[in-house]
Protein backbone atom coordinates (compact mmCIF):
# COMPACT_ATOMS: atom_id res chain seq x y z
CA UNK A 1 0.00 0.00 0.00
CA UNK A 2 2.38 2.66 -1.22
CA UNK A 3 -0.24 5.37 -1.64
CA UNK A 4 -1.09 5.11 2.02
CA UNK A 5 2.49 6.06 2.92
CA UNK A 6 2.44 9.34 1.03
CA UNK A 7 2.10 12.19 3.52
CA UNK A 8 -0.94 13.64 1.80
CA UNK A 9 -1.40 16.32 4.40
CA UNK A 10 2.09 17.70 3.85
CA UNK A 11 1.47 17.64 0.11
CA UNK A 12 -1.62 19.74 0.67
CA UNK A 13 0.62 22.45 2.15
CA UNK A 14 3.49 22.19 -0.30
CA UNK A 15 1.43 22.17 -3.46
CA UNK A 16 -0.29 25.51 -3.03
CA UNK A 17 3.02 27.08 -1.98
CA UNK A 18 4.63 25.75 -5.13
CA UNK A 19 1.57 26.83 -7.07
CA UNK A 20 1.81 30.33 -5.66
CA UNK A 21 5.44 30.62 -6.68
CA UNK A 22 4.88 29.34 -10.17
CA UNK A 23 1.86 31.59 -10.68
CA UNK A 24 4.04 34.48 -9.58
CA UNK A 25 6.91 33.51 -11.83
CA UNK A 26 4.83 32.95 -14.96
CA UNK A 27 1.85 35.28 -14.66
CA UNK A 28 0.64 34.57 -18.19
CA UNK A 29 0.05 30.94 -17.29
CA UNK A 30 -1.33 31.77 -13.84
CA UNK A 31 -4.80 30.49 -14.63
CA UNK A 32 -3.92 26.99 -15.87
CA UNK A 33 -1.24 26.65 -13.22
CA UNK A 34 -3.69 27.67 -10.53
CA UNK A 35 -6.40 25.33 -11.72
CA UNK A 36 -4.04 22.39 -11.91
CA UNK A 37 -2.83 23.14 -8.40
CA UNK A 38 -6.38 23.40 -7.14
CA UNK A 39 -7.22 19.99 -8.57
CA UNK A 40 -4.06 18.52 -7.12
CA UNK A 41 -4.91 19.88 -3.68
CA UNK A 42 -8.34 18.32 -3.87
CA UNK A 43 -6.74 14.99 -4.67
CA UNK A 44 -4.34 15.38 -1.73
CA UNK A 45 -7.17 16.08 0.66
CA UNK A 46 -9.03 13.06 -0.64
CA UNK A 47 -5.87 11.03 -0.12
CA UNK A 48 -5.56 12.29 3.42
CA UNK A 49 -9.17 11.37 4.07
CA UNK A 50 -8.56 7.86 2.87
CA UNK A 51 -5.43 7.65 4.99
CA UNK A 52 -7.30 8.78 8.08
CA UNK A 53 -10.12 6.33 7.46
CA UNK A 54 -7.62 3.50 7.16
CA UNK A 55 -5.20 4.43 9.90
CA UNK A 56 -6.97 6.79 12.27
CA UNK A 57 -5.66 10.17 13.40
CA UNK A 58 -2.19 11.02 12.13
CA UNK A 59 0.75 12.87 13.65
CA UNK A 60 3.62 13.97 11.45
CA UNK A 61 6.91 15.26 12.78
CA UNK A 62 8.35 17.84 10.42
CA UNK A 63 12.12 17.43 10.21
CA UNK A 64 11.80 14.16 12.03
CA UNK A 65 12.38 15.80 15.43
CA UNK A 66 8.98 15.53 16.96
CA UNK A 67 7.46 17.70 19.64
CA UNK A 68 8.41 19.49 21.78
CA UNK A 69 11.65 20.33 19.96
CA UNK A 70 10.31 20.20 16.44
CA UNK A 71 6.97 21.07 14.90
CA UNK A 72 4.26 18.48 14.59
CA UNK A 73 1.43 18.33 12.14
CA UNK A 74 -1.69 16.63 13.35
CA UNK A 75 -4.73 15.46 11.45
CA UNK A 76 -7.92 14.06 12.92
CA UNK A 77 -11.53 14.15 11.85
CA UNK A 78 -11.92 17.83 12.66
CA UNK A 79 -8.85 18.71 10.60
CA UNK A 80 -10.07 16.57 7.77
CA UNK A 81 -13.46 18.21 7.62
CA UNK A 82 -11.89 21.67 7.62
CA UNK A 83 -9.52 20.65 4.84
CA UNK A 84 -12.35 19.13 2.84
CA UNK A 85 -14.40 22.26 3.27
CA UNK A 86 -11.45 24.33 2.09
CA UNK A 87 -10.89 22.02 -0.86
CA UNK A 88 -14.49 22.07 -2.05
CA UNK A 89 -14.96 25.79 -1.59
CA UNK A 90 -11.48 26.45 -2.96
CA UNK A 91 -12.10 24.47 -6.10
CA UNK A 92 -15.38 26.29 -6.61
CA UNK A 93 -13.75 29.67 -6.13
CA UNK A 94 -10.91 28.73 -8.48
CA UNK A 95 -13.35 27.88 -11.24
CA UNK A 96 -15.49 30.91 -10.54
CA UNK A 97 -12.61 33.32 -10.67
CA UNK A 98 -11.65 32.10 -14.17
CA UNK A 99 -14.59 34.08 -15.43
CA UNK A 100 -14.58 36.84 -12.86
CA UNK A 101 -11.14 38.41 -13.15
CA UNK A 102 -9.66 39.99 -16.22
CA UNK A 103 -6.13 39.17 -17.28
CA UNK A 104 -4.53 41.96 -15.26
CA UNK A 105 -6.28 41.16 -11.99
CA UNK A 106 -5.91 37.42 -12.50
CA UNK A 107 -2.16 37.55 -12.43
CA UNK A 108 -2.28 39.08 -8.96
CA UNK A 109 -5.20 37.02 -7.78
CA UNK A 110 -3.79 33.60 -8.40
CA UNK A 111 -0.53 33.74 -6.42
CA UNK A 112 -2.25 35.48 -3.52
CA UNK A 113 -5.06 32.96 -3.54
CA UNK A 114 -2.62 30.05 -3.63
CA UNK A 115 -0.77 31.54 -0.69
CA UNK A 116 -4.03 31.88 1.16
CA UNK A 117 -4.92 28.28 0.43
CA UNK A 118 -1.49 27.14 1.62
CA UNK A 119 -1.97 29.16 4.79
CA UNK A 120 -5.35 27.58 5.43
CA UNK A 121 -4.14 24.04 4.90
CA UNK A 122 -1.05 24.66 7.02
CA UNK A 123 -3.18 26.19 9.74
CA UNK A 124 -5.65 23.33 9.89
CA UNK A 125 -2.85 20.78 10.02
CA UNK A 126 -0.64 22.50 12.55
CA UNK A 127 -0.33 21.17 16.08
CA UNK A 128 2.00 23.90 17.28
CA UNK A 129 0.74 27.20 18.66
CA UNK A 130 3.70 29.24 17.40
CA UNK A 131 3.46 27.69 13.96
CA UNK A 132 -0.20 28.58 14.09
CA UNK A 133 0.81 32.20 14.61
CA UNK A 134 2.92 32.13 11.44
CA UNK A 135 0.09 30.58 9.44
CA UNK A 136 -2.32 33.13 10.88
CA UNK A 137 -0.11 35.94 9.63
CA UNK A 138 0.28 34.31 6.24
CA UNK A 139 -3.47 34.00 6.10
CA UNK A 140 -4.12 37.54 7.26
CA UNK A 141 -1.74 39.22 4.85
CA UNK A 142 -3.01 37.17 1.92
CA UNK A 143 -6.60 38.02 2.81
CA UNK A 144 -5.86 41.73 3.14
CA UNK A 145 -4.06 41.84 -0.18
CA UNK A 146 -6.97 40.05 -1.83
CA UNK A 147 -9.50 42.49 -0.42
CA UNK A 148 -7.45 45.40 -1.72
CA UNK A 149 -7.44 43.79 -5.15
CA UNK A 150 -10.86 45.30 -5.79
CA UNK A 151 -9.31 48.79 -5.80
CA UNK A 152 -11.34 51.87 -4.99
CA UNK A 153 -11.68 53.79 -1.75
CA UNK A 154 -14.11 51.37 -0.10
CA UNK A 155 -12.01 48.30 -0.68
CA UNK A 156 -8.77 49.99 0.29
CA UNK A 157 -10.20 51.39 3.50
CA UNK A 158 -11.81 48.05 4.26
CA UNK A 159 -8.53 46.28 3.63
CA UNK A 160 -6.61 48.75 5.79
CA UNK A 161 -8.96 48.33 8.72
CA UNK A 162 -8.88 44.58 8.24
CA UNK A 163 -5.08 44.61 8.26
CA UNK A 164 -4.89 46.62 11.47
CA UNK A 165 -7.39 44.38 13.20
CA UNK A 166 -5.71 41.27 11.92
CA UNK A 167 -2.31 42.40 13.16
CA UNK A 168 -3.72 43.39 16.54
CA UNK A 169 -5.36 39.99 16.83
CA UNK A 170 -2.14 38.23 15.91
CA UNK A 171 -0.12 40.20 18.44
CA UNK A 172 -2.55 39.39 21.24
CA UNK A 173 -2.34 35.78 20.23
CA UNK A 174 1.45 35.87 20.09
CA UNK A 175 1.75 37.37 23.56
CA UNK A 176 -0.42 34.53 24.78
CA UNK A 177 1.88 32.07 23.04
CA UNK A 178 4.85 33.68 24.75
CA UNK A 179 3.25 33.31 28.17
CA UNK A 180 2.29 29.70 27.54
CA UNK A 181 5.72 28.82 26.23
CA UNK A 182 7.46 30.39 29.16
CA UNK A 183 5.09 28.68 31.56
CA UNK A 184 5.41 25.15 30.27
CA UNK A 185 8.38 25.12 27.93
CA UNK A 186 6.55 23.91 24.88
CA UNK A 187 4.43 25.20 22.05
CA UNK A 188 3.11 21.80 21.02
CA UNK A 189 -0.61 21.54 21.70
CA UNK A 190 -0.53 17.94 22.90
CA UNK A 191 2.42 18.57 25.23
CA UNK A 192 0.78 21.69 26.59
CA UNK A 193 -2.44 19.79 27.13
CA UNK A 194 -0.55 17.37 29.36
CA UNK A 195 1.34 20.00 31.33
CA UNK A 196 -1.19 22.77 31.59
CA UNK A 197 -2.49 23.79 34.98
CA UNK A 198 -4.30 26.86 36.17
CA UNK A 199 -2.05 29.82 36.95
CA UNK A 200 -2.21 33.60 36.50
CA UNK A 201 0.00 33.41 33.43
CA UNK A 202 -2.22 30.77 31.84
CA UNK A 203 -5.32 32.81 32.51
CA UNK A 204 -3.65 35.85 31.01
CA UNK A 205 -2.58 33.80 28.01
CA UNK A 206 -6.08 32.46 27.63
CA UNK A 207 -7.57 35.92 27.77
CA UNK A 208 -5.13 37.28 25.23
CA UNK A 209 -5.39 34.39 22.81
CA UNK A 210 -9.16 34.18 22.96
CA UNK A 211 -9.49 37.93 22.51
CA UNK A 212 -7.11 37.94 19.59
CA UNK A 213 -8.86 35.05 17.91
CA UNK A 214 -12.30 36.50 18.55
CA UNK A 215 -11.14 39.69 16.92
CA UNK A 216 -10.13 37.72 13.85
CA UNK A 217 -13.28 35.62 13.94
CA UNK A 218 -15.33 38.82 14.16
CA UNK A 219 -17.51 37.77 17.04
CA UNK A 220 -19.89 40.50 18.13
CA UNK A 221 -18.93 43.16 19.27
CA UNK A 222 -15.56 42.69 17.59
CA UNK A 223 -17.16 42.35 14.18
CA UNK A 224 -16.92 46.03 13.23
CA UNK A 225 -14.29 45.43 10.57
CA UNK A 226 -15.97 42.51 8.83
CA UNK A 227 -18.85 43.97 6.81
CA UNK A 228 -16.78 46.63 5.06
CA UNK A 229 -13.94 44.24 4.26
CA UNK A 230 -16.13 41.39 3.11
CA UNK A 231 -18.55 43.52 1.16
CA UNK A 232 -16.01 45.61 -0.70
CA UNK A 233 -13.76 42.75 -1.79
CA UNK A 234 -14.10 41.15 -5.24
CA UNK A 235 -16.87 38.52 -5.16
CA UNK A 236 -14.71 35.38 -5.09
CA UNK A 237 -12.60 36.96 -2.37
CA UNK A 238 -15.68 37.85 -0.32
CA UNK A 239 -16.72 34.25 -0.69
CA UNK A 240 -13.49 32.82 0.57
CA UNK A 241 -13.20 35.36 3.38
CA UNK A 242 -16.64 34.55 4.72
CA UNK A 243 -16.49 30.86 4.00
CA UNK A 244 -12.96 30.04 5.04
CA UNK A 245 -10.80 32.76 6.54
CA UNK A 246 -12.94 33.63 9.56
CA UNK A 247 -13.38 29.92 10.21
CA UNK A 248 -9.64 29.44 10.48
CA UNK A 249 -9.29 31.55 13.60
CA UNK A 250 -12.39 29.90 15.02
CA UNK A 251 -10.75 26.54 14.41
CA UNK A 252 -7.71 27.56 16.45
CA UNK A 253 -9.96 28.85 19.18
CA UNK A 254 -11.86 25.57 19.20
CA UNK A 255 -8.68 23.52 19.37
CA UNK A 256 -7.26 25.60 22.21
CA UNK A 257 -10.55 25.50 24.06
CA UNK A 258 -10.81 21.75 23.82
CA UNK A 259 -7.17 20.89 24.43
CA UNK A 260 -5.40 23.55 26.45
CA UNK A 261 -8.12 25.47 28.26
CA UNK A 262 -10.51 22.81 29.50
CA UNK A 263 -10.40 24.48 32.93
CA UNK A 264 -11.75 27.73 31.50
CA UNK A 265 -14.95 27.25 33.37
CA UNK A 266 -18.61 27.73 32.75
CA UNK A 267 -18.63 31.49 33.22
CA UNK A 268 -16.40 32.14 30.24
CA UNK A 269 -18.37 29.65 28.16
CA UNK A 270 -21.57 31.45 29.07
CA UNK A 271 -19.99 34.75 28.08
CA UNK A 272 -19.00 33.37 24.69
CA UNK A 273 -22.48 31.96 24.24
CA UNK A 274 -23.98 35.31 25.17
CA UNK A 275 -21.81 37.13 22.65
CA UNK A 276 -22.74 34.50 20.10
CA UNK A 277 -26.43 35.01 20.74
CA UNK A 278 -25.98 38.78 20.52
CA UNK A 279 -24.14 38.32 17.22
CA UNK A 280 -26.95 36.17 15.85
CA UNK A 281 -29.57 38.78 16.65
CA UNK A 282 -27.54 41.88 15.84
CA UNK A 283 -26.21 40.45 12.59
CA UNK A 284 -29.68 39.36 11.55
CA UNK A 285 -31.21 42.75 12.31
CA UNK A 286 -28.44 44.62 10.54
CA UNK A 287 -28.73 42.34 7.54
CA UNK A 288 -32.40 43.20 7.28
CA UNK A 289 -31.60 46.91 7.30
CA UNK A 290 -29.05 46.83 4.49
CA UNK A 291 -29.80 48.26 1.08
CA UNK A 292 -26.88 46.64 -0.71
CA UNK A 293 -26.83 42.93 -1.34
CA UNK A 294 -23.19 42.31 -0.50
CA UNK A 295 -23.44 44.26 2.75
CA UNK A 296 -26.47 42.19 3.63
CA UNK A 297 -24.61 38.95 3.02
CA UNK A 298 -21.66 40.21 5.03
CA UNK A 299 -23.87 41.00 8.02
CA UNK A 300 -25.38 37.57 7.73
CA UNK A 301 -21.87 36.22 8.16
CA UNK A 302 -21.68 38.10 11.47
CA UNK A 303 -24.89 36.36 12.51
CA UNK A 304 -23.80 32.94 11.37
CA UNK A 305 -20.52 33.24 13.22
CA UNK A 306 -22.57 33.79 16.33
CA UNK A 307 -24.11 30.33 15.99
CA UNK A 308 -20.66 28.80 16.29
CA UNK A 309 -20.29 30.21 19.77
CA UNK A 310 -23.59 28.88 21.01
CA UNK A 311 -21.90 25.51 21.29
CA UNK A 312 -19.51 26.70 23.99
CA UNK A 313 -21.98 26.87 26.88
CA UNK A 314 -23.64 23.64 25.70
CA UNK A 315 -20.33 21.79 25.81
CA UNK A 316 -21.65 18.49 24.54
CA UNK A 317 -20.68 16.40 21.55
CA UNK A 318 -24.04 17.12 19.99
CA UNK A 319 -23.43 20.82 20.48
CA UNK A 320 -19.94 20.76 18.98
CA UNK A 321 -21.19 18.70 16.08
CA UNK A 322 -23.92 21.26 15.56
CA UNK A 323 -21.41 24.11 15.55
CA UNK A 324 -19.20 22.23 13.14
CA UNK A 325 -22.20 21.69 10.93
CA UNK A 326 -22.99 25.40 10.99
CA UNK A 327 -19.43 26.00 9.96
CA UNK A 328 -19.50 23.57 7.04
CA UNK A 329 -22.91 24.43 5.68
CA UNK A 330 -22.31 28.15 6.11
CA UNK A 331 -19.10 27.81 4.13
CA UNK A 332 -20.85 26.26 1.16
CA UNK A 333 -23.95 28.43 1.38
CA UNK A 334 -22.13 31.71 1.87
CA UNK A 335 -19.80 30.94 -1.01
CA UNK A 336 -22.82 30.39 -3.21
CA UNK A 337 -24.40 33.62 -1.97
CA UNK A 338 -21.39 35.81 -2.59
CA UNK A 339 -20.93 34.20 -5.98
CA UNK A 340 -24.56 34.93 -6.78
CA UNK A 341 -24.10 38.51 -5.63
CA UNK A 342 -20.99 38.68 -7.77
CA UNK A 343 -22.95 37.50 -10.79
CA UNK A 344 -25.61 40.11 -10.18
CA UNK A 345 -22.99 42.85 -9.87
CA UNK A 346 -21.22 41.58 -12.97
CA UNK A 347 -24.45 41.51 -14.90
CA UNK A 348 -26.14 44.72 -13.89
CA UNK A 349 -23.27 46.72 -12.45
CA UNK A 350 -24.94 47.29 -9.08
CA UNK A 351 -26.23 45.36 -6.09
CA UNK A 352 -28.97 47.66 -4.77
CA UNK A 353 -31.59 45.35 -3.38
CA UNK A 354 -34.61 47.39 -4.45
CA UNK A 355 -33.51 47.34 -8.09
CA UNK A 356 -32.82 43.65 -8.18
CA UNK A 357 -36.01 42.82 -10.06
CA UNK A 358 -34.44 44.09 -13.23
CA UNK A 359 -31.54 41.77 -12.86
CA UNK A 360 -32.57 38.52 -11.32
CA UNK A 361 -35.09 37.58 -13.96
CA UNK A 362 -32.29 37.24 -16.45
CA UNK A 363 -30.15 35.13 -14.14
CA UNK A 364 -32.41 32.25 -13.11
CA UNK A 365 -29.52 29.99 -12.15
CA UNK A 366 -28.00 32.67 -9.98
CA UNK A 367 -31.18 33.41 -8.10
CA UNK A 368 -31.77 29.68 -7.68
CA UNK A 369 -28.32 29.42 -6.16
CA UNK A 370 -29.12 32.31 -3.84
CA UNK A 371 -32.42 30.75 -2.81
CA UNK A 372 -30.96 27.31 -2.18
CA UNK A 373 -28.13 28.81 -0.17
CA UNK A 374 -30.73 30.85 1.69
CA UNK A 375 -32.59 27.69 2.64
CA UNK A 376 -29.46 26.41 4.31
CA UNK A 377 -28.67 29.74 5.97
CA UNK A 378 -32.11 30.02 7.53
CA UNK A 379 -32.01 26.38 8.54
CA UNK A 380 -34.95 24.93 6.67
CA UNK A 381 -34.81 21.30 5.66
CA UNK A 382 -33.40 19.61 3.75
CA UNK A 383 -30.06 21.34 4.13
CA UNK A 384 -26.88 21.41 6.14
CA UNK A 385 -28.19 24.43 7.98
CA UNK A 386 -31.22 22.48 9.17
CA UNK A 387 -29.09 19.68 10.55
CA UNK A 388 -26.96 22.25 12.35
CA UNK A 389 -30.00 23.92 13.83
CA UNK A 390 -31.46 20.59 14.87
CA UNK A 391 -28.28 19.48 16.60
CA UNK A 392 -27.78 22.78 18.42
CA UNK A 393 -31.40 22.89 19.48
CA UNK A 394 -31.22 19.32 20.69
CA UNK A 395 -28.06 20.06 22.64
CA UNK A 396 -29.64 23.19 24.13
CA UNK A 397 -32.73 21.34 25.31
CA UNK A 398 -30.79 18.35 26.55
CA UNK A 399 -28.48 20.51 28.62
CA UNK A 400 -31.47 22.33 30.08
CA UNK A 401 -30.23 25.64 28.68
CA UNK A 402 -33.19 26.16 26.38
CA UNK A 403 -32.60 29.92 26.20
CA UNK A 404 -29.82 29.38 23.68
CA UNK A 405 -32.45 27.73 21.54
CA UNK A 406 -34.39 30.99 21.46
CA UNK A 407 -31.45 32.83 19.92
CA UNK A 408 -31.15 30.02 17.43
CA UNK A 409 -34.80 30.20 16.46
CA UNK A 410 -34.94 34.00 16.27
CA UNK A 411 -31.79 34.02 14.18
CA UNK A 412 -33.38 31.58 11.76
CA UNK A 413 -36.49 33.74 11.47
CA UNK A 414 -34.41 36.85 10.83
CA UNK A 415 -32.48 35.08 8.10
CA UNK A 416 -35.71 33.87 6.58
CA UNK A 417 -36.92 37.45 6.52
CA UNK A 418 -34.00 38.77 4.52
CA UNK A 419 -33.64 35.74 2.26
CA UNK A 420 -37.24 36.01 1.16
CA UNK A 421 -36.95 39.78 0.88
CA UNK A 422 -34.29 39.24 -1.77
CA UNK A 423 -35.81 36.17 -3.40
CA UNK A 424 -39.18 37.90 -3.62
CA UNK A 425 -37.74 40.16 -6.30
CA UNK A 426 -37.22 37.17 -8.52
CA UNK A 427 -40.97 36.96 -8.96
CA UNK A 428 -41.63 40.61 -9.64
CA UNK A 429 -42.31 41.49 -13.19
CA UNK A 430 -40.17 44.20 -14.60
CA UNK A 431 -40.08 45.17 -18.21
CA UNK A 432 -37.51 47.90 -17.84
CA UNK A 433 -34.77 47.24 -20.35
CA UNK A 434 -31.23 47.74 -19.23
CA UNK A 435 -27.73 47.36 -20.45
CA UNK A 436 -26.15 44.25 -19.17
CA UNK A 437 -23.05 42.19 -19.49
CA UNK A 438 -23.46 38.48 -20.13
CA UNK A 439 -22.34 36.40 -17.16
CA UNK A 440 -20.05 33.51 -18.06
CA UNK A 441 -21.82 30.19 -17.64
CA UNK A 442 -19.07 28.89 -15.36
CA UNK A 443 -19.84 31.62 -12.83
CA UNK A 444 -23.54 30.84 -12.74
CA UNK A 445 -23.04 27.10 -12.51
CA UNK A 446 -20.38 27.25 -9.80
CA UNK A 447 -22.69 29.35 -7.67
CA UNK A 448 -25.45 26.82 -8.16
CA UNK A 449 -23.17 23.88 -7.43
CA UNK A 450 -21.96 25.42 -4.18
CA UNK A 451 -25.57 25.95 -3.13
CA UNK A 452 -26.36 22.34 -3.99
CA UNK A 453 -23.44 21.28 -1.79
CA UNK A 454 -25.03 23.20 1.09
CA UNK A 455 -28.28 21.33 0.49
CA UNK A 456 -26.61 17.94 0.10
CA UNK A 457 -24.79 18.44 3.40
CA UNK A 458 -28.17 17.86 4.98
CA UNK A 459 -28.60 14.49 3.36
CA UNK A 460 -25.24 12.88 3.98
CA UNK A 461 -24.87 13.54 7.66
CA UNK A 462 -23.86 10.08 8.85
CA UNK A 463 -20.94 9.93 6.45
CA UNK A 464 -19.61 13.29 7.58
CA UNK A 465 -20.12 12.47 11.22
CA UNK A 466 -18.18 9.25 10.73
CA UNK A 467 -15.31 11.30 9.31
CA UNK A 468 -15.54 13.78 12.16
CA UNK A 469 -15.19 11.05 14.74
CA UNK A 470 -11.75 10.01 13.53
CA UNK A 471 -9.49 10.63 16.48
CA UNK A 472 -12.44 11.83 18.59
CA UNK A 473 -11.63 15.55 18.49
CA UNK A 474 -14.46 16.33 20.91
CA UNK A 475 -13.64 13.49 23.27
CA UNK A 476 -16.33 11.08 24.36
CA UNK A 477 -17.22 7.73 22.96
CA UNK A 478 -18.24 8.60 19.45
CA UNK A 479 -21.73 8.91 18.15
CA UNK A 480 -23.39 12.24 18.70
CA UNK A 481 -26.83 10.75 19.18
Amino acid at each position, binding site marked *: MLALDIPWGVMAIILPLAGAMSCFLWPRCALPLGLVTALAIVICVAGLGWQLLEQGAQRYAVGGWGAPLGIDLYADGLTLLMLMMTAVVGLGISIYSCGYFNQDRARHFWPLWMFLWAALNALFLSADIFNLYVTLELLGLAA*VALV*ALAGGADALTGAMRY*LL*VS*LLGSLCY*LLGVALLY*HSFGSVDIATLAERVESSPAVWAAMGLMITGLLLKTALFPLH*FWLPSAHASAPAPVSALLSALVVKASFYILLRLWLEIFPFAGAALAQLLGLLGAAAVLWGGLQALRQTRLKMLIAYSTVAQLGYLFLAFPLASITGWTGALYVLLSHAAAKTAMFMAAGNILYFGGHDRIVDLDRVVQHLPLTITAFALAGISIMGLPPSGGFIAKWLLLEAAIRSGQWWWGIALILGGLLSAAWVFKVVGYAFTRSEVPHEARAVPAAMEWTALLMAVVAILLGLFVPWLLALMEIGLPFGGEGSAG
Partner: protein
Amino acid sequence: MIPAFLYALVGVGLFTLGLYALIIHAHLLRKILALNVMASGVFLVLVALAARTQGMPDPVAHAMVITGIVVAVSATALALVLMLRVRIATGRAELAKEPLE
Protein backbone atom coordinates in the same frame (compact mmCIF):
# COMPACT_ATOMS: atom_id res chain seq x y z
CA MET B 1 16.84 36.27 37.73
CA ILE B 2 15.48 39.74 38.28
CA PRO B 3 16.63 41.44 35.02
CA ALA B 4 14.70 38.94 32.92
CA PHE B 5 11.49 39.95 34.64
CA LEU B 6 12.37 43.61 34.47
CA TYR B 7 12.71 43.45 30.70
CA ALA B 8 9.57 41.38 30.45
CA LEU B 9 7.67 44.02 32.41
CA VAL B 10 8.97 46.68 30.05
CA GLY B 11 7.68 44.49 27.25
CA VAL B 12 4.23 44.40 28.85
CA GLY B 13 4.39 48.15 29.22
CA LEU B 14 5.25 48.62 25.56
CA PHE B 15 2.39 46.32 24.58
CA THR B 16 -0.17 48.34 26.56
CA LEU B 17 1.21 51.69 25.46
CA GLY B 18 1.07 50.53 21.86
CA LEU B 19 -2.49 49.44 22.31
CA TYR B 20 -3.36 52.82 23.81
CA ALA B 21 -1.79 54.63 20.90
CA LEU B 22 -3.47 52.33 18.40
CA ILE B 23 -6.87 53.23 19.75
CA ILE B 24 -6.23 56.92 20.39
CA HIS B 25 -4.68 57.99 17.13
CA ALA B 26 -6.62 58.40 13.94
CA HIS B 27 -3.71 58.78 11.58
CA LEU B 28 -2.83 55.51 9.95
CA LEU B 29 0.90 55.98 10.22
CA ARG B 30 0.58 56.36 13.96
CA LYS B 31 -1.60 53.28 14.11
CA ILE B 32 0.96 51.28 12.19
CA LEU B 33 3.72 52.54 14.43
CA ALA B 34 1.64 51.69 17.47
CA LEU B 35 1.30 48.14 16.23
CA ASN B 36 5.06 48.01 15.81
CA VAL B 37 5.53 49.17 19.38
CA MET B 38 3.14 46.45 20.50
CA ALA B 39 5.08 43.90 18.50
CA SER B 40 8.32 45.04 20.09
CA GLY B 41 6.72 44.60 23.47
CA VAL B 42 5.72 41.06 22.67
CA PHE B 43 9.15 40.24 21.35
CA LEU B 44 10.72 41.70 24.45
CA VAL B 45 8.59 39.50 26.69
CA LEU B 46 9.41 36.50 24.58
CA VAL B 47 13.14 37.07 24.52
CA ALA B 48 13.59 38.39 28.07
CA LEU B 49 11.97 35.44 29.73
CA ALA B 50 14.23 33.13 27.74
CA ALA B 51 17.07 34.19 30.00
CA ARG B 52 15.71 32.29 33.00
CA THR B 53 18.18 29.48 32.47
CA GLN B 54 21.49 28.42 33.85
CA GLY B 55 23.98 29.43 31.21
CA MET B 56 22.87 29.60 27.59
CA PRO B 57 19.54 31.39 27.16
CA ASP B 58 16.75 29.42 25.52
CA PRO B 59 17.47 29.57 21.78
CA VAL B 60 13.95 28.57 20.75
CA ALA B 61 12.52 31.83 22.03
CA HIS B 62 15.22 33.71 20.14
CA ALA B 63 14.35 31.90 16.95
CA MET B 64 10.71 32.72 17.50
CA VAL B 65 11.53 36.38 17.88
CA ILE B 66 13.53 36.40 14.66
CA THR B 67 10.63 34.79 12.86
CA GLY B 68 8.27 37.26 14.47
CA ILE B 69 10.38 40.22 13.41
CA VAL B 70 10.41 39.15 9.79
CA VAL B 71 6.67 38.70 9.89
CA ALA B 72 6.26 42.11 11.51
CA VAL B 73 8.49 43.75 8.92
CA SER B 74 6.53 42.19 6.09
CA ALA B 75 3.23 43.23 7.58
CA THR B 76 4.48 46.75 8.23
CA ALA B 77 5.66 47.09 4.64
CA LEU B 78 2.28 46.00 3.31
CA ALA B 79 0.51 48.28 5.78
CA LEU B 80 2.57 51.32 4.78
CA VAL B 81 1.97 50.84 1.08
CA LEU B 82 -1.70 50.22 1.71
CA MET B 83 -1.80 53.43 3.73
CA LEU B 84 -0.35 55.36 0.79
CA ARG B 85 -3.01 53.89 -1.48
CA VAL B 86 -5.76 54.79 0.97
CA ARG B 87 -4.41 58.32 1.04
CA ILE B 88 -4.39 58.52 -2.74
CA ALA B 89 -7.91 57.11 -2.96
CA THR B 90 -9.56 59.10 -0.17
CA GLY B 91 -7.27 62.05 0.27
CA ARG B 92 -6.73 61.24 3.92
CA ALA B 93 -4.50 58.80 5.69
CA GLU B 94 -7.28 57.96 8.12
CA LEU B 95 -10.03 55.41 8.24
CA ALA B 96 -13.39 56.84 7.31
CA LYS B 97 -14.95 55.71 10.54
CA GLU B 98 -13.13 54.81 13.67
CA PRO B 99 -13.26 51.21 14.75
CA LEU B 100 -15.69 50.93 17.59
CA GLU B 101 -13.11 50.00 20.17
